[in-house]
């Protein structure tokens, strides 16, 4: 490093460097502790709130860790075994995992495709482009609590405007968006698309800007139609960005909490059908304070997500060569 830095220094700096090196013994005169002092404030936070929790999550999951009881007996893998043997609340947990899987399966395709369309449109040159980009991104800065209370009102089966307008155009005006299936999923996915599509669109836009223009020119010279250009230049060019969007969206959807919590309620109407894994785990660990089993559930969920993430990178990365 020291030699590398010296080679990059400007000519005058280099001259001075030589002069000083003669008297002081080189430009690297940082104290031994200096780097650690710079690292210290962050590493304290990191150690306490990231590193220690990662380890203690496993430790807690090996105990019957009830926050409200004095003893927290070591129970080995019992919390995990219980989840797979179907005893106690395992059934409700797996039901919540299924709800999470459904939300992920329903929400990822629109969250990957619709923002791509938005990005392709906003990538064109037309008046007010930056304004439109801001509008599509804006819902994302609102936060899930605002979006949740707003959509709870919009989707209300009796006083919501969505049912009102559906009635006006001759469709059923009593659709149970907040407490019936499959309507609850459609409502939750719809509001999530509204909320986060702009985020994905901005990432796609950055990807589109990274595709060299000559590729389009070459395609046009070869007589490629607009669709062919999109299919053979744009999509391949966006592959790494798409990989990122798909992975981030799967992880975000699998962690869904606020939308159902605020729209279909804490118990996930109808009948726990939309109570997601994060809702169940928080209820188990921080509502009923059964932290041992909740930690085991967290680790199980996190492991599944890690596997999906790794699989994703392999799947999409493989076609990248």
């Amino acid at each position, binding site marked *: 490093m020291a030699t590398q830095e010296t080679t990059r220094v400007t000519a005058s700096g280099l001259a001075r460097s030589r002069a000083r090196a003669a008297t002081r013994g080189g430009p690297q005169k940082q104290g031994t502790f200096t780097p650690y002092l710079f690292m210290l404030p962050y590493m304290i936070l990191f150690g306490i709130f*990231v590193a220690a929790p990662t380890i203690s999550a496993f430790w807690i999951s090996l105990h019957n860790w009830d926050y409200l009881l004095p003893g927290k007996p070591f129970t080995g893998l019992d919390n995990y075994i219980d989840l797979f043997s179907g005893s106690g609340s395992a059934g409700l947990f797996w039901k919540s995992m299924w709800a999470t899987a459904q939300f992920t399966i329903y929400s990822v395709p629109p969250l990957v495709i619709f923002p791509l369309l938005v990005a392709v449109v906003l990538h064109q040159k037309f008046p007010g482009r930056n304004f*439109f980009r801001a509008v599509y991104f804006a819902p994302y800065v609102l936060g899930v*609590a605002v979006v949740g209370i707003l959509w709870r009102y919009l989707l209300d089966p009796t006083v919501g405007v969505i049912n009102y307008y559906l009635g006006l155009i001759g469709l059923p005006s009593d659709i149970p968006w907040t407490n019936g299936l499959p309507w609850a999923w459609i409502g939750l996915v719809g509001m999530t698309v509204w909320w986060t599509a702009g985020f994905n669109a901005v990432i796609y*836009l950055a990807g589109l800007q990274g595709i060299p223009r000559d590729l389009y020119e070459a395609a046009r010279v070869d007589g490629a139609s607009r669709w062919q250009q999109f299919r053979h230049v744009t999509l391949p060019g966006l592959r790494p960005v798409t990989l990122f969007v798909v992975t981030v969206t799967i992880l975000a959807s699998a962690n869904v909490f606020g939308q159902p919590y605020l729209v279909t309620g804490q118990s996930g109407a109808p009948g726990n059908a939309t109570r997601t894994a994060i809702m169940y785990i928080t209820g188990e*660990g921080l509502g009923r304070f059964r932290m041992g089993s909740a930690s085991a559930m967290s680790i199980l969920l996190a492991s599944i997500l890690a596997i999906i993430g790794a699989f994703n990178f392999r799947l999409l990365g493989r076609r990248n060569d």
Partner: protein
Amino acid sequence: MAEAAVASRPPGRSTGSRRPLWWLAYAALIVFTAFYVAPFVWMIVTSFKTNAATTAATPTWIPQPFVTEGYSEIANPALDQPVLKWFLNSVISAVGHTLTVLVTASMAAYALARMEFTGKRLMFGLIIATLFIPPIIFLIPNYLIVDTFGWIDTLMAVIVPTAATAFGVFFMRQFFVSLPIELEEAALLDGANHWAIFTRIVLPLSKPALATLAVLSFLNNWNDFLWPLFVLVSGPNLTLPPGLSQLQSSYGTDYAVIMAGGVLASIPVLIIFTVAQRYVIEGVARSGLKG
């Protein structure tokens, strides 16, 4: 219809490529965008209605009568739901969190970008690795840690733990590495120590990155819902997101009040987004390109 009006305008005023089809697409975009904005407009409109009007059989886009009852209700200091106190708590939390992130992340990132020391690779590797750990893992242990510190139901619980995110360090390190090193080396040769170089040369050169990180940290903290929902317990100590949830459950169908709370929670982030749009969008775009 706006669609027809726009479509009938003479095409190709500036370039010959603007055919009727182009105008039609542009009109469609405007209409679609109007639908996109409608939910947000509806929140604002509703907040100026009477509670009775918010559940009327025929909804209207212009409040009649136009009232500010929703706002005076949430501004009432004698209220069970002290929304203005929540607003203040959210400001303190978001500002405190942002400052913590800026100081700790930029210092660590500077060491990682510009210094050689034993354990550097290990530390950086560990920090980056945690970017891939689903945050649900931290939830219960961090609840217990925060409880040990006596921080449950205090703003410390929402300011500090989330500042440990690896994103800030990663983001600032990438920026520092991209800065030309010559100025720093010249200063080092002139006898300046690393602290002086960091505060007088590197940080002033890093204003765009710091602004981006500040805006993203502020928005994250302002909007954080799950964590404060569980670590903040009593009425006066909430931030706005868990507060809005409580407003929703205690006001039921008084949508004017609930939407007034929503508007209040949206104003700061929308102002920040309008003013610092470049930083927000660039920050998001850059985070994507990293992947």
